[in-house]
């Protein structure tokens, strides 16, 4: 018995060694890891966490915008916003599917979200108070998401990278619609312009924090970059985002709430001020203005829908039985 175990372990480890070798080669070649390929358990775990958190963010991220669907100030804006929030549900679905290819079913991932064991992007724990927030969320939040996600289209894990290609196409529409909402407001009445400026003031800092903590405080980034999931560091992406939005803000005729923001000729980039990382950590730990409400709404939707899902499952079972004549099972035969 003991001998058998040793033999099996040896075989497994030989397989692991061959698998690791193949994995390392694929990563070195900048090639793709596919669901059936061997992968290190830590790679699988880390990606499952990243992809499912991304999915959860799409789902929770529907709430602040859904908050304004019923009050959108024109029918065209209402229709566009509905289509946008629908896209987000779609992104959640692709991403849960990508995560499932790593071996964890969607309902397990969903339970992790509902039980508070999984995180989602902290930005959605801020309130969407005014219509201009629909503009700021599209321009800044989706804009930051795009900076993060375009490099993820080349992520080493195939299903994730491919999901990101489609998501990025839709996100770029989302960003444009946000910018366009703000453009209309900043070129509208003084009250509208003020509404736009107020929204930008509130979302600027949290949007910059979407890239995660500064590089020196981001221990997981290094491994993720070695695996070629992440291609650029948090600070590199944040800089890229700031460089992108400064001229866009000028075109909008709005200011960004950072007195230290200025062009640095030497670096060829904009310098910007220190962000409030204490606030960031406090929101991540559950202290944001909306953490409790966002979770409560998701849990309630899930609980209210339980009887519907049960009915659908029962109906599907019945249909399957009717379409396939029941086989007689001879128990114990």
């Amino acid at each position: 018995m003991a001998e058998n175990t040793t033999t099996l372990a040896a075989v497994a480890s030989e397989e692991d060694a061959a698998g690791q070798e193949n994995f390392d080669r694929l990563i070195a070649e900048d090639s793709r890891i596919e669901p059936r390929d061997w992968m290190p358990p830590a790679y699988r775990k880390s990606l499952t966490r990243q992809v499912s958190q991304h999915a959860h963010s799409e789902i929770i991220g529907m709430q602040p915008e859904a908050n304004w669907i019923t009050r959108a100030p024109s029918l065209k804006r209402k229709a566009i916003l509905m289509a946008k929030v629908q896209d987000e549900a779609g992104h959640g679905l692709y991403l849960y599917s990508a995560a499932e290819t790593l071996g964890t079913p969607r309902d397990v991932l969903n339970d992790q979200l509902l039980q508070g064991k999984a995180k989602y992007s902290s930005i959605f724990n801020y309130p969407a108070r005014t219509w201009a927030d629909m503009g700021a969320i599209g321009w800044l939040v989706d804009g930051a998401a795009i900076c993060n996600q375009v490099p993820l289209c080349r992520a080493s894990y195939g299903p994730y990278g491919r999901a990101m290609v489609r998501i990025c196409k839709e996100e770029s529409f989302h960003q444009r619609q946000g910018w366009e909402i703000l453009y209309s407001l900043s070129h509208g009445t003084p009250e509208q312009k003020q509404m736009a400026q107020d929204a930008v003031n509130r979302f600027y800092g949290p949007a910059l924090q979407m890239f995660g903590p500064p590089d020196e405080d981001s221990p997981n980034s290094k491994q993720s970059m070695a695996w070629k999931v992440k291609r650029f560091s948090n600070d590199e992406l944040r800089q890229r985002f700031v460089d992108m939005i400064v001229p866009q803000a000028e075109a909008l005729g709005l200011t960004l709430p950072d007195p230290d923001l200025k062009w640095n000729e030497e670096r060829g980039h904009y310098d910007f001020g220190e962000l409030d990382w204490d606030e960031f950590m406090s929101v991540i730990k559950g202290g944001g203005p909306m953490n409790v409400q966002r979770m409560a709404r998701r849990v309630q939707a899930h609980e209210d829908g339980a009887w519907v899902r049960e009915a659908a499952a029962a109906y599907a079972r019945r249909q399957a039985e009717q379409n396939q004549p029941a086989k007689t099972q001879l128990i114990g035969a």
Partner: protein
Amino acid sequence: MSFATNDSATKQSAGVAITAEEIAESGSTASEAVANYAVQLGDDALMLGQRLSWWISRAPELEEDIALGNIALDLVGHARFFLTYAGTAWGKTEDQLAYLRDEEEFRSARLVEAENGDFAKTIARQLYYSFYSYELYTRLVDSKDETLSAIANKALKEVLYHQDHAAVWLNRLGLGTEESARRMQAGLDELWPYVGELFYDDENTAELAGQGIAVLPSSLEEPTLERITRAITEAGLEVPTSPTARGLDRSGATSEWRGYILAEMQVLARRYPEAQW
């Protein structure tokens, strides 16, 4: 102008399908009578779209967030077509009609104004409304009014999906579990009294129907109810027998729901009535 009439909604390119903007720019002006009829059709679609859109981020499954959201989006689209066309009679935009009219100026039926309730009640309303609107649009495509016909043609392709969605869920809930059957029956029962209003012949619509422009509402009653009855029966449920609720003129005089919907929908637009968004 002419509208394309052949392709299916899903296969149409954005350039081929009609848009509210094209209706506004087409130069066709609705008569007062046609405008009043278009308002009635547009208000039904708008109120239901508004109600359904609440489900986005609250549905039982992500797939339903998308499905109900998509139906709501179609309905808001239909509302935009009808209200834009109606507005040509009075020099008003779709938004002026949607956002700056008062309760008593709307002409929506109470069925579409009703609260969402649980998922079963929402499905009951979808069943009643989508089956009715299917019958309506299959006839309105033959309207002598070119714009109404084009709108009906576009809407019909979408309503086919709405019917399918409602019928599939009616079966799942009716034949699912004991609880789902109970809830589905309750939803059907609760909304049944408001179905009759859809078939009421007001004077203006009856006159336009005589001219081959509108569809006579009462002519839709038999075909709609016949199909609804069959669907409910096949789902193992009872066709409600309760009487139709009084007050069939869509005036709002017998609705408590309309004011709440408008209070929410119009709040921002009314606060800044001169603003462009």
